[in-house]
Every structure is written in structure tokens, then in C-alpha cells.
């Protein structure tokens, strides 16, 4: 800031004590921001507090704010429910998320590297074709994809979810952009040393892509963890379901037991929160980089 003011020139007016709005404006800014903050936080607070209340307390009118009788019973119930082995659904969700992340990271970096660093006949055509396909929104391909999965007998299989999401347009863009910044000398040096093309990709290119892989991997993990519509279509049997679908099922079979549902909702958010707290900077960066949700 000091560099930007006109050096050596006396200020034409009395220098302002601070840049930007005055004390009143600053107060107003904090006030409005805190108001918005409370509105953002309140539903979370409500969810967490409700999950520690007894169900009778939750149904009381008017509602209590803090739990009068702090109880862990809801959490104990959902973890021990014989009809809802929560850990089983955690492992379903984790299985799909991990395989989704690994497969998309692999295909994205490989295809991105190919389009960034290799020249071959038909490259533009192949890439254009690819772009067009990827721009087609998923709701139009949802119905035939479902029919294909059912022909293949992959309905009610977690693999059905994984196979159809193994290639991701955004990931390929991101990796292609990243690969373009890698110096060609890096690969050429390895070629002279006698490394095979696959060795170059796996041992030289992939490690260079680490930041991009991490950002994209985290975003993709969260997307997969929270996915709802497509898993709901593919996973129709209860025992193969992922967490978001099991949560709605649990809600519809436990009407009037809001405390249990809130505890289950807390539990589905915990892994995402852990990921977010640890990788916050990368996540926000990744979201800003492109229109990815």
C-alpha cells in the first residue's frame, strides 16, 4: 500500500486515517456479516443440539434451545440399530468414493497429459468429440445409462456407480492445463535415460501433478460422498445403499423420531467436515478455479 501512494508528493488533502469505510461503515459491515454468519450457522447449531435431545423434548412446543437432558442415546441407537448398521453404509459410501477418486484421478491425469504433451493425427478431433460428449448434461444420458447398467446386471452393484463415473471432464481440463506448464525437458531427459513412456508418466509426470491431483481428488471425494440422484437410481436394495440415500430412507421410516434423524445427519457430515478442516485452502482454491460443484 505504501508503494502505491505518490511518493514525495505532499497529499493534496488531509491524509485519510484509514482506507475504505469509516468507523460507522466498518461497524455496519461487521454487523451485516455477523447477521449472515448467524443465519448460516443457526441450522447447524439446531441440528447438533437436536441430536443430543431426547425425542420427547424435541417434540415440545415451544422448542427448547439447549438440551435439558443431554443424551447420547440417539447416537447409541443409530450405531446399534440392527436394521441400520450405520458402519456398513459408511463402508459402502467410502468404497464408492475411494474408487471414484482413484479412477478419475488416473484417467484425468493420463488423458490430460496425452492432450497436453503429445501430437498425433486426429488429436483435435478426438478432443473436440470428447468435449462435446462431456458438455451433455447428465440428465439426458441418465436414462440410457440406467438401461445399460440393468442390461449388464449392475443395478444394485456399487461397481455400477464406479464404472460410469470413471472419466470426468473437469478433471481432464484441470490436468491438461497443469501438464502444459511442465517443461518438455523433464520428459525428454527421462527418455534419453531410457525410461519408457509409462515410466515417465507414472514416475515423473504424476509426482509433478501432486497439487492438482490433491485439489481435484478432494473435491471429487466430496462430490461422490454427497451424490444422491444417480446412486438412488442405481442402488435400489437397502443393503447396498450409500449414506445420503440411507438417510432419506431412515427419515421416512422414523417419522416423529427427529432426534434420531438429526444424529444420523450429523454422522453423515462428519467425514466431510474432517476433510474440509484439513484441506480447507485447497478446497476453496479448487472451487474458485472453475465452475465445479
Amino acid at each position: 500500500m505504501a508503494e502505491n501512494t505518490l511518493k514525495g508528493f505532499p497529499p493534496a488533502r488531509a491524509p485519510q486515517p484509514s482506507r475504505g469505510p469509516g468507523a460507522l461503515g466498518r461497524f455496519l459491515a461487521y454487523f451485516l456479516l455477523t447477521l449472515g454468519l448467524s443465519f448460516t450457522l443457526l441450522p447447524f447449531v439446531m441440528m447438533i443440539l437436536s441430536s443430543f435431545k431426547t425425542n420427547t423434548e424435541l417434540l415440545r412446543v415451544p422448542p427448547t434451545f439447549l438440551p435439558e437432558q443431554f443424551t447420547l442415546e440417539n447416537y447409541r441407537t443409530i450405531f446399534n440399530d440392527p436394521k441400520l448398521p450405520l458402519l456398513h453404509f459408511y463402508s459402502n459410501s467410502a468404497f464408492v468414493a475411494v474408487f471414484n477418486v482413484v479412477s478419475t484421478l488416473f484417467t484425468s491425469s493420463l488423458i490430460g497429459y496425452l492432450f497436453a504433451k503429445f501430437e498425433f493425427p486426429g488429436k483435435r478431433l478426438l478432443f473436440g468429440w470428447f468435449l462435446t460428449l462431456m458438455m451433455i448434461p447428465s440428465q439426458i444420458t441418465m436414462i440410457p445409462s440406467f438401461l445399460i447398467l440393468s442390461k449388464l446386471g449392475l443395478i444394485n452393484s456399487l461397481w455400477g456407480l464406479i464404472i460410469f463415473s470413471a472419466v470426468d471432464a473437469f478433471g481432464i481440463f484441470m490436468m491438461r492445463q497443469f501438464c502444459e506448464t511442465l517443461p518438455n525437458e523433464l520428459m525428454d531427459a527421462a527418455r534419453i535415460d531410457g525410461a519408457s513412456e509409462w515410466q515417465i508418466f507414472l514416475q515423473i509426470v504424476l509426482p509433478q501433478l501432486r497439487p492438482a491431483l490433491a485439489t481435484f481428488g478432494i473435491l471429487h471425494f466430496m462430490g461422490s460422498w454427497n451424490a444422491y440422484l444417480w446412486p438412488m437410481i442405481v442402488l435400489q436394495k437397502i443393503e447396498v445403499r450409500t449414506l445420503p440415500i440411507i438417510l432419506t430412507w431412515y427419515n421416512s421410516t422414523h417419522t416423529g423420531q427427529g432426534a434420531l434423524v438429526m444424529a444420523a445427519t450429523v454422522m453423515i457430515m462428519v467425514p466431510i467436515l474432517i476433510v474440509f478442516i484439513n484441506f480447507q485452502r485447497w478446497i476453496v482454491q479448487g472451487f474458485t478455479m472453475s465452475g465445479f460443484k
Partner: protein
Amino acid sequence: MNVLRKKGSKARGGLALAKGRFVLGVTLPLLVYESIGVFVLAWAFILMFFDYSPGRVGGPILGLGGSNPFVGIDHFIEMVKGTSVEASLFRISLKNTLIFAFAILPLNLAITLPLAYLLEQIGDRFKAMYRTIYFLPVLTSSVGVALIWMSMYDPQAGWINAIVRFFGGTPVTWLSDPRAGFLGISVAMWAVMLAYLWQDYGYNMVIFIAALQAIPQELKDAAMIDGASSWKAFTKITLPLIRPTMLFVCVMTMLSSFQVFDIIQVMTNGDPGNRTQVLMLDIYKNAFRYQNLGWAAAESFILFLIVMGVTIFQMRVLRTDWEY
């Protein structure tokens, strides 16, 4: 010398061969994948001209024909002027989707842009904390968001009606009163829109913050030195400079609200009285509840046209370069 050159070219030839093998090894599976993609797309396109249900035994190719007859553009004619339940439901869904998208956009901008601007004005120490908290709902599973808001909207024990009672109002059955409305939009629709907004505004805020940070400090300082008021600096300098971001945010918000599904499916499932039935929900119900896949494919095509229209508009308008 001659030998050396020969050796070099041989090595180069070997390299080219190795590169070629690698390219082939990657492009061939990609080609297969893209071909499957084309096949899926073609299937989606063909389906909308058939009255198709996977339960019936159809013709030999993809089960089309036979008891899954070809109906041409009948689905689309029906959508425009048909009197069947499906046709009127489609029109209701289309209307609700448009209401949803066109109400969400201004509301979202009215929240995100001022808040992002204000956030840029305050000290760095708090900035990160505020941004983190505003961003939390974006990461929350939309099913979770829906369940939280359902519990807040609960007519008896929900917090929202508790606030209404506190101020002396009569409690509202937020998610199930088909008659109650405000500004011509049903209360249930407002209720799901509020939940949707709550989940979504952190995303646009983060994008706006990034754009505001990219504005060079000299420009803001220059305005200050010239004695411009904060409001003037905002409208004359900040707004024009973030125009590309504004457009991007508008289009992305539109696109995702046209495709809204999760929150509404969980919270109301289209009720009360189809007041919150949106296109994606109608497509889902037709395809996977009523096995009416041909009709659902035709509906998806309409949604696709809308989405494509917005995307093309975006590409046309966003192509303007902006430098500062």
C-alpha cells in the same frame, strides 16, 4: 560421423515408436469410451420418439418397436397441447422450474455480492473465519440440508414457527399448505428456495471474493484519492471490473437451479398439490417410478435445450475480453 548420425536417427525412430505406442495405448480405450458415449447419447435421442417402458417386451433392437411403439414427435405435441395428466404435470413442472430459477438468481446475487464486498473491507484476521463458515453449507450433503430444514419447518416443534409465535403470528404449515402463497409463489416453494439458497450462497460468495481480490489495489486507491465515496467506488469501479465474474456466476446459478432435484425431492417430493414439482423431479418420477421412459426422455430433452441455451448464451457473452 555418418555412423553417429545413423545411430541418432535410429534412437529417434525408437523414441517415436515408443511415443506412438503410448499414444495408441491411451487413445484406443478413449476411443472405445467415446464411442460408448455416442451410443448412449443416440439411445437417449431415439428413446424420446418411442413409447418405451423396460417392462414390456419390445422389438429386437434395444427393445424398441413391438409393444414399445414408435410415436414420432407425439410426446412433444402432447407436451404443448395435450390434456393428459402427464402433459399438464410437465407444464406445471416447467413453470415451477422457471419460477425457481428466476427467483433464486436475484435473491442469490442480492445476498452474495454485498456480503462478499463487505467481507473484502474487513480485517484479514476475521476474513478467513467468516469465509470458512459461509462456505460450510456448500459442502454439506443436500440430503442433510433438506432434513435440517425440514426439522426447522416442522409446524409444531420447528424453530421457525417458534419465531413466528414469538412475534405473535399464527404458525404456518410451511411445506404442506397448498393454498398459502406470497407474491404469487406458494409458501412451500419459498420454503424450499430458502433451504436451497442457504446451501448455495457460500459458493458464489467465494467466487466473488476471488474476483474482488483480483482488482488491483491501485485502482481502489486512485478512487479514494480522487475522493470518491464508497458507494461510488463500488458502482463505478468494482462492478464494471467484476462484470465477467458476474456473468459467470449468473449462468452457473441459473444452470444449477434449472436442474434442482435433491432438496426438493427430500423436502416435499413435489407436494403440496404439485406446487414444488420441478422438471428433474418429474423426469425422475416418470422414468423410475412410472416406467414411462420414452416420455421422460422427451422431457429430459426439453431440459437439455434450456440448459444448452443458457450455456450458449454464456459462451457468447463471456467471450468479451476484459483487461485491467
